[in-house]
């Protein structure tokens, strides 16, 4: 319950006014009266934070049900409280959060409560993973929220190193120019804006940067290019969601071409 309350408070920071509380039960296994009681308790606890609250008890595959309800209720995003699973659990049982990140066409907010609670719900640093694929327009909506009240914004781009030093220098300059342009659009909402250009494996570098800058939330776009490697090891967004020690907001863009590097 405490985690859910922390999540609700956190969602307020993203300007949330209406929530749909959804609990999915496996058909035949759950006692409906018990679930209904728990849902009522949750609603009582968090309802006062929002203007409008609705609770639903669904049945079937949790990930599919979450995506369906979110679509039907036209929510702005899906928020899930992260539940840590070890390798064996993940391999044998799967992860609902991972499945939702993979399936959802709406933004998915994965809340890793422990970290936020330690800092007293305080939001200081936000890492904005930039892929220059126009998904930043959608991400900006979340960054330019009054209630967010974070102080530092790190715009991090992880690119491929160019084949030679001259081209690489030009690429780095172009990356910094574009990051500064993007940050300029957020200058009214943050005290410090920092462009960061990294080279290497996006998953690894984003996670390292999140630790280095002690960020509270990673906000990133998601694009599925359907490659064989992605099918096997998962997308960058899925891996970052699983391995990050902080909360993650994934903003999917299925209607754009793959990210353009500079």
């Amino acid at each position, binding site marked *: 319950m405490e985690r859910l309350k922390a999540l609700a408070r956190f969602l307020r920071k993203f300007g949330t006014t209406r929530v749909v509380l959804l609990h999915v039960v496996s058909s035949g296994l759950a006692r409906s009266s018990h679930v209904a009681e728990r849902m009522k308790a949750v609603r009582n606890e968090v309802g006062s934070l929002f203007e409008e609250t609705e609770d639903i008890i669904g049945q079937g595959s949790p990930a599919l049900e979450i995506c369906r309800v979110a679509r039907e209720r036209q929510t702005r995003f899906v928020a899930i409280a992260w539940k840590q699973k070890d390798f064996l659990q993940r391999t044998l049982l799967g992860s609902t959060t991972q499945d939702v990140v993979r399936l959802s066409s709406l933004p998915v907010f994965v809340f890793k409560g422990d970290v936020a609670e330690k800092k007293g719900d305080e939001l200081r640093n936000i890492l904005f993973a930039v892929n220059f694929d126009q998904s930043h327009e959608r991400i900006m909506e979340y960054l330019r929220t009054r209630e967010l009240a974070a102080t530092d914004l790190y715009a991090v781009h992880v690119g491929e*190193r*160019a084949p*030679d030093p*001259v081209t690489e220098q030009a690429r780095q300059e172009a990356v910094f120019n574009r990051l500064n342009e993007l940050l300029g659009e957020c200058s009214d909402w943050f005290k410090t804006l920092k462009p960061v250009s990294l080279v290497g494996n996006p998953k690894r570098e984003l996670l390292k940067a999140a630790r280095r800058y002690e960020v509270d939330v990673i906000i990133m776009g998601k694009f599925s290019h359907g490659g064989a490697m992605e099918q096997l090891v998962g997308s960058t967004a899925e891996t970052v969601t699983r391995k990050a020690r902080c909360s993650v907001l994934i903003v999917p863009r299925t209607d754009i071409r793959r990210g353009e590097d500079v």
Partner: protein
Amino acid sequence: MIKRNAVFIFSLLLSVPFIFMGLFTPGFLNRLSSIIHTTIIEHFGWGYLLSVFFFLIFALYLAFSRYGNLKLGKDYEKPQYSYFGWFSMLFAAGMGIGLIFWGVAEPLSHFANPPGYLESNSREAAQFAMQRSFFHWGLHPWAIYITMSLSIAFFSFRRGMPPLISSCFYPLLGNRIYGWPGYAIDILAVFATVFGIATSLGLGALQITSGLASVTPLPETMAVTLSIIAVVTLLFMLSSATGLDTGIQILSKTNILFAMILLGFMLVVGPTSYTLNVFTSTLGEYGSALLSMSLSTNPFTGYDWTKDWTLFYWAWWIAWSPFVGLFVASISRGRTVREFILGALLVPALLTFLWFSVFGGAAFHLELERGISLSESVGNNVSTALFELFTYYPLTPILTTLALLLLGVFFITSADSATYVLSMMTSRGNLNPPLSRKIVWGLLQSATAAALIFSGGLEALQKMAIAAALPFTLVMLFLSLSLLRAMRYEWVYERPREAEKSGSD
């Protein structure tokens, strides 16, 4: 100062102790190199087979992929050398001298000593011998060379970096190529090249001495061998001083002409139909067994044979690849990736197949159809195999002289190109290295070869060169990844921008 010449200084510091060991304690070097060599071949043989097969697949993939259209140079550049000049130099640097040495000797060696599951001196052994000779000298060695030379040519001519192996690692290592990781790669390349060249020169000189002894009254003595090294050194230094455009090119073209004359003569005067049957049949068997041969370590029976031949060759080609790779890259500017790969993979391989069919076929004709045993005398002295074969043909002295001339010129072109490559590698990729550096490397190689023949440490040093192949295999695998990343970057990010720019113009 040290940083500027780090590769030169440290490669010398690393090589000299081994050379001294070869000179003063050849027995110890032999024991040391044998332990290293045997351990590597015993435990990592499968790794060589997998890696070399990967290089072949990688080369074919690049040739037929979208990257095949990329040019090894700027888009407007044209090839620097004609096809004939290019093929001649490719062949001279990559195979040349070895092919003269092993053209008859290798099929006969496999025929007399096949793996345990075949009977010696049988018709099956002859078939096996031809197939494996094609295999050891065919597509695989060239795939190794192509991986190396394509990377160097791409990064230096297209991306404007110095022609060094370390340059090819920029996509993976970034600016660390200008530090110790980059130096380590270049030093390893120089190490393998110095040892490889010194031992090749020594073994080549021994073969020329044997050949001369069979056609002239000159005795097969140390003094003659040392004199041959001295003469060859003088000639290759002269060739080296004239530069790549004249020296090596003219010598290589002349040599290919000589080789064609010798090949044509043997084909026409020898058992022509038999030779062409051997060629056609072995080509078919080679093609159909390519996959199984590429990956067969024969763990149940014949593993020793695989270790002695296939794994030795694979390690040798890999150790040789920095030298051939750099040289082949330097003569391939202006060709497209597809043209380069198909040209360097197919033409030298076909010529090699023809060479083995003519010379190996002629030897088997004597063995199997006329009952003349060559394999016994070849078993005693491998370097005399070709000259032994000539004694059963008309115009023996002329053929032997022509073969000696071929050997000598290939010897000169190999030493010349090695000197050029070593000077280039140790002068930070300067395509026109200073003459003084060429002289230093040239003299050092010849002096080492001569001294090692004297001390008997030639084969021990050769094993050290081959030992360098193990780390170099890893270097080459990462090299492939780096090249692929660079080509992908160009295709995915730069091409669309260029197309957009030219569209808006």
